[in-house]
């Protein structure tokens, strides 16, 4: 089964994302910020990364940029969680190499649909 790295500094959001995805049978690894996520991604290799944008230590945009620069993540879908007001964040994310975004607030069904879409 595909493995997904869920990155968010908010424990409740992270839990919600992880719980939903695990319920759908995905392997989920959680990380609380970009630094942690990058380390996990380097050591484990995941099929999809879903990251929040605003986080301490390393934000989502930098995480995406760094991940995209890694040979093993050149084609991996990297999704960011963003708010409806984050139009410029979407642009920054795209520029950094994000595949797409999930707009907050979202419900578990929307999340699953999006994940199914990118994981095929």
């Amino acid at each position, binding site marked *: 089964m595909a493995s997904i790295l869920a990155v968010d*500094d*908010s*424990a*409740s*959001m992270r*839990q*919600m994302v992880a*719980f*939903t995805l695990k*319920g*759908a049978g995905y392997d989920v690894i959680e990380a609380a910020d970009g630094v942690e996520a990058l380390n996990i991604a380097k050591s484990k290799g995941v099929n999809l990364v879903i990251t*929040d944008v*605003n*986080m*301490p230590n390393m934000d989502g945009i930098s995480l995406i940029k760094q991940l*995209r620069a890694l040979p093993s993540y*050149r*084609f*991996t*879908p*990297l999704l960011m*969680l963003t*708010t*409806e*007001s984050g*139009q*410029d964040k979407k642009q920054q994310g*795209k520029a950094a*190499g*994000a*595949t*797409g*975004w999930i*707009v*907050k*607030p*979202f*419900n*578990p*069904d929307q999340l*699953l649909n999006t994940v199914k*879409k*990118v994981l*095929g």
Partner: protein
Amino acid sequence: MSIDMEQFHQVFFEESFEGLEVMEAGLLRMDGGAVDDEEINAIFRAAHSIKGGSGTFGFTEVADFTHVMETLLDEMRDGRRPVTPNTVQVLLRSVDVLREMLTATREGASPDPEQVRIQQAELESVLASPGTAPPEASVDAAPESREQAPEAAGWHIVFRPHPHMMRTGNDPLRIIRELAELGDLQVTGDVSLLPPFSEFDPEECYLSWDLHLDAPVDRARIDEIFDWVEDDCDLAIMPVMIDAPREEAPGPDQSRLSAVSPPAERRVGERRSPEPRRRQERRSGQASPSSSIRVDIGKIDALINMVGELVITQSMLSLLGDDFHMGQLGRLRDGLAQLDRHTRELQESVMQIRMLPISFTFSRFPRLVHDLGAKLGKKIELKMTGENTEVDKTVIEKIGDPLVHLVRNSLDHGLEMPEERIAAGKPETGTVELNAYHKGGNIVIEIRDDGRGLDRDRILAKALERGLVQEDHNLTDRQIHELIFQPGFSTAEQVSDVSGRGVGMDVVRRNINELGGSIEIESEPGQGSAIIIRLPLTLAILDGQTVAVGDETYIVPLISIVESIQVRREMIHLVAGRGETIRLRDDYLPVIRLHEVFGIENPRATDLVDGLLVVVEGEGGQFGILVDDLIGQQQVVIKSLEANYQRVEGISGATILGDGSVALILDIPGVLRLAAGAGDVDQLQQSA
């Protein structure tokens, strides 16, 4: 798939209340003039997380309110709006309102709509006032092209990915597959851009497609599918009318819309019947009645490791027991020693779980000092050290109110007005220090100020007036300081709004005693005063001295014991009005015979020289407790008497000893009261 979102609510509330702390602490530091980017960023992130979570979990009012705060913070973060004291104040007030909203929401009530409206209006007026740039209008594009959607019978799409598209993690195939799910799709591939094989880069996309979707779907559905790649391809989306001939692509269609924009900006109406429940106690985030605790994962891992070790030891011992012979005695001893060590380590790890940094309690003080200082017209600097000192969760919950009282006292009575300070040759700004540290198995919390100190004469005058002391008593400074812990004692000229809240120092001391701790005062006239609180690290386990009296065994908390001495005949003095005392160095200590207090029938020592005297510290003074013998020191697990039987004066709990017998744990202040009440020690409180 239906998921019960409620299971995440508790975590959401916990982290939101933590977020509020972060915001408040950050704002207060900014108020002090320190503005650094990371600070604003941290505040912004906290607001952002609360907004995101509340939106996701359906707390629309909270999300809406936080959105306005976030917008303001975002402008400050981007440097589009200067950080002014006024803005900080507005944000601080908003934090308060948000806290009340979250508290109400957690309890299933509606926030007070009027208060929220007022605060939101205040935020919006700040936003409306010119910063350095006009506030950004909502970026959400209205679905402008909706009008053309319904009549389309199908869509003709020309999709030409840019070569790099796959490097964004997007896949043209996925998009085509998704389109095919909407209806009948005719796909025509265009391979004209495919380079000769020698120049072929497998990571690039050379293909483009001409797509005919035969389905009367909304334009928005199509846009949504291409949402992520709109900048990574040339795209034309044209409606196909019924009977209309298929037309050629008129070039890339640039009209885009963000298809995924749920109506999150809905203005709040009162969704439930307004039942504004005002909650006075702030910070209920920590003292939640449905108690849960967030534990560092490292602590849990340590625990699991320890249990693993214990299981190994256990299996080794049981193997040994299967056919034991005396030749294995050494191994048995080793095993038991290991069991002992692992049990102790396990116990420590379990205790660790209940430990929280004292910063949970300290974090409220910057705000308190800030607000109070403004109210009193005093300049005050708060210094805190040792915020990471860990202490039992119950202590954290119960020490808050006494500390607030003590800090208020310091600000109100201790520190002088700026003019007075300058006149006294001190810096204009007064300092209050909150220190926490571990010392000998206890946690010590100090509240120090550099104010005027305790006024010895006024305290004494007041005590005389109240009949708490007699004229002829020659009291030491320390004994005078003790007087303020007497019930009903207050030296403030007038009961002020700030500290005169009907709670006296006697209540503070009682609360601290209930936690098994002690409190004392140091004061230097004109230089300041310090309140020193000693608390046990945990309430579940106690370091105790086991003592024997007759056939009974009692536990004296080690925290109370100063020393234990053998009394010699010449140390005994009879002092008029104070009964029998022991002269120890320069002090005369009153004596309590434990067997008299508890009515024990056959004590071995009734004469002071036959037994041992445990000198303890309680209610500010030292006194001696006569026991038959000291047995040993050990850690005992405290079992509540109140929960299992009833409250007994002089006894704080019970424990079970290694041999299975029950020993009672002495409550030193209680024993003192018992003895004083029995007339055994005359006026012990005053003379102590």
